[in-house]
């Protein structure tokens, strides 16, 4: 009875705290500007199924993709066992599904066990890759301190989680062998693929009392780990396991080369071309005067999709290792752009909660987090966008920051200022007269 109460309290706390955090993230994402991504539902679902569910882009790099898939698949299918733990925890039953599902139960748990072994191996491989092998993308400047620790914490948690599953099932198997399991099943073995062998091997020598303690440690350890993991997610890069799905659903479906056209600039230029336009006219009644700035200085100036991208990023660094600027030693790292955007968004969200919606801490994404040197190093080649396994678009953030610098602050590298003047004066980025444009026809 005590355990039911303890479990119920833990369970409710987990759900409420996680829900509260999810709402916080949602609210932060919605600080972004409007962007219509409600079109083309069929294509969006297809993209989500291929890219998030099927991990299509991960499989361009086969080895990490396979290991990542083990963890992903184990994670998805373990949720069945999780459901059982919740039912058992709330109602005081033991292996509730064993009785109700019968043979299917053995199959499901066996699958979980096999995948857990594979996930265990994958986790060790990932820990080695991250810490022992000198894979450059795990050792860039932005991957020190918390991001590095975050990457390792989750892997250690996974190992603990898997150890707990096998302790739980292994001890219970031996208990059943001895006729002392609380599970309502026929026979002297569960017949699970791994623990029917591993259980007796490890726990064979213990007495019933000790085995029951092991079984409980495994059971509680497992569920406490899951509850902690769930509530760790919103504070970690690992939120991608949930956001990968909506983020790919809301992917940009246009050609990658297409940048957005700024509607407020379009309107101003149309007015310039309109001989009947009166710049001093008062706005017509009901007309909303748009005080929007040009481009982005801070996170609220980006679109909600940019902000969702930032929360979805799991800092794998495939973008940065494909970035031509980064690879030739420039300061730009598309991954850092995403991490900065997320860190700033969290900060802005916290400020608003603490000090009210109008609070200004005098900081901004551009300047305090991302420097001009970084954004001017971009060649807009779309390699980062192409590489991202969950369809994040760092380029659109870079362009929006450039837009703010150029149009609001007139801060533009000298040579580019010349180029821009040339375009405005002669319709070409170089200083040639428009009347010479067709000279090539008659040249030798």
């Amino acid at each position: 009875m005590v355990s039911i109460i303890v479990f119920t309290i833990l369970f409710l706390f987990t759900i409420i705290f996680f829900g509260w955090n999810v709402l916080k993230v949602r609210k932060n994402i919605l600080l972004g500007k409007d962007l219509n991504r409600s079109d083309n539902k069929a294509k969006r679902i297809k993209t989500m199924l291929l890219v998030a569910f099927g991990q299509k882009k991960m499989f361009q790099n086969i080895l990490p993709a396979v290991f990542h898939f083990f963890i992903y698949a184990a994670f998805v299918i373990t949720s069945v066992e999780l459901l059982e733990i919740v039912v058992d925890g709330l109602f005081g039953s033991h292996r509730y599904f064993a009785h109700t599902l019968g043979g299917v139960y053995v199959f499901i748990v066996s699958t979980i066990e096999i995948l857990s072994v594979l996930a265990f191996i994958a986790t060790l491989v990932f820990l080695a890759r991250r810490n022992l092998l000198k894979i450059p993308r795990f050792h860039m400047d932005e991957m020190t301190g918390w991001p590095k620790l975050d990457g390792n914490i989750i892997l250690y948690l996974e190992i603990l989680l898997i150890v707990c599953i096998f302790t739980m099932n292994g001890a219970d198997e031996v208990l059943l062998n001895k006729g002392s399991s609380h599970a309502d099943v026929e026979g002297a073995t569960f017949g699970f693929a791994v623990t029917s062998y591993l259980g007796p091997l490890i726990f064979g020598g213990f007495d019933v009392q000790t085995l029951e303690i092991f079984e409980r440690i495994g059971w509680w350890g497992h569920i406490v780990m899951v509850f902690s993991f769930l509530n760790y997610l919103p504070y970690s890069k690992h939120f991608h396991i949930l956001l990968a799905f909506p983020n790919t659903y809301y992917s940009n479906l246009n050609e990658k080369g297409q940048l957005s056209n700024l509607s407020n600039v379009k309107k101003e230029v149309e007015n310039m071309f309109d001989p009947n336009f009166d710049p001093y006219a008062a706005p017509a009644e009901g007309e909303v005067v748009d005080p929007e700035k040009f481009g982005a200085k801070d996170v609220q100036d980006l679109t909600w999709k940019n902000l969702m991208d930032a929360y979805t990023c799991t800092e794998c660094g495939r973008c940065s290792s494909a970035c031509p600027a980064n690879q030739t030693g420039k300061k730009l790292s598309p991954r850092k752009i995403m991490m900065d955007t997320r860190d700033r968004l969290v900060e802005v969200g916290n400020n608003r909660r603490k000090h009210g919606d109008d609070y200004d801490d005098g900081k901004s994404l551009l300047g305090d987090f991302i420097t001009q040197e970084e954004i001017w190093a971009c060649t807009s080649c779309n390699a980062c966008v192409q590489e991202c396994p969950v369809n994040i678009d760092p380029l659109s953030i870079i362009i929006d920051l450039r837009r703010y610098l150029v149009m609001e602050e007139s801060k533009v590298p000298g040579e580019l200022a010349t180029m821009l003047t040339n375009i405005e004066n002669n319709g070409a980025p170089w200083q040639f007269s428009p009347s010479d444009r067709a000279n090539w026809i008659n040249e030798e």
Partner: protein
Amino acid sequence: MSNSISVPTVADMVAKGESPEILFWVGCAGSFDDRAKKITKAIVKILNNCKVKFAVLGQEESCTGDPAKRAGNEFSFMMQAMQNIQLLNGYEIKKIVTACPHCFNTLKNEYPELGGNYDVIHHTQLINSLMREGRLKIEGGSFKGKKITFHDPCYLGRANNEYEAPREILNKLDSELVEMKRCKTKGLCCGAGGAQMFKEAEKGRKEINIERTEEALEKAPNYIATGCPFCNTMMTDGVKHFEKESQTAVLDVAELIANAAEL
């Protein structure tokens, strides 16, 4: 033979009561840059040879606004775009071919929302369809046994998903087409995009074009083929940097084809 090219302007054609089948958008590089002008001429020779009824805008053409947009100046871009669209719509242009992937991308993807709807193709796509239709025939002779590697322009490849047209053409040259380690979707930028062409690079270990040319030269090709005037400049500079001009030439796909077709 360059004297024999025929380049009508749209204005001339319209004055005669005709209209072009396709507009050849030459672009700023193709009009003003001495190296790129040769690519422009190669394309004209191909168009002339295939009797394509094309025209250019001549002095009326103006920058699409791509470098301004990528440099963050949406105003300059919008001014260019609106003037160009007004001109193109006034001439009732339906189809455009261009030798610059940046013009290609802007005309094709960014103009429609502003009222400029055209069927826009890159010159490698046009050449490829002319060859498929049998209107353009080449003898592989002069390139037989030569090694060619194709550098994917970002704005043709990743930006617009066209990887095959240039390769299909190059395969007809009877030469050996070798791929660099980073090619197609993984292709490394030449370093010129996003308005970088017009400024010095930020501080770093290496210039991007050096990194890319190094990769191309690892294959010891006779030709580095490109489909973009800016890539061409960057790769040419890279080859010069490594003093390999005598072994490796940087040519546009159009130049290779015009050469093979003996135009």
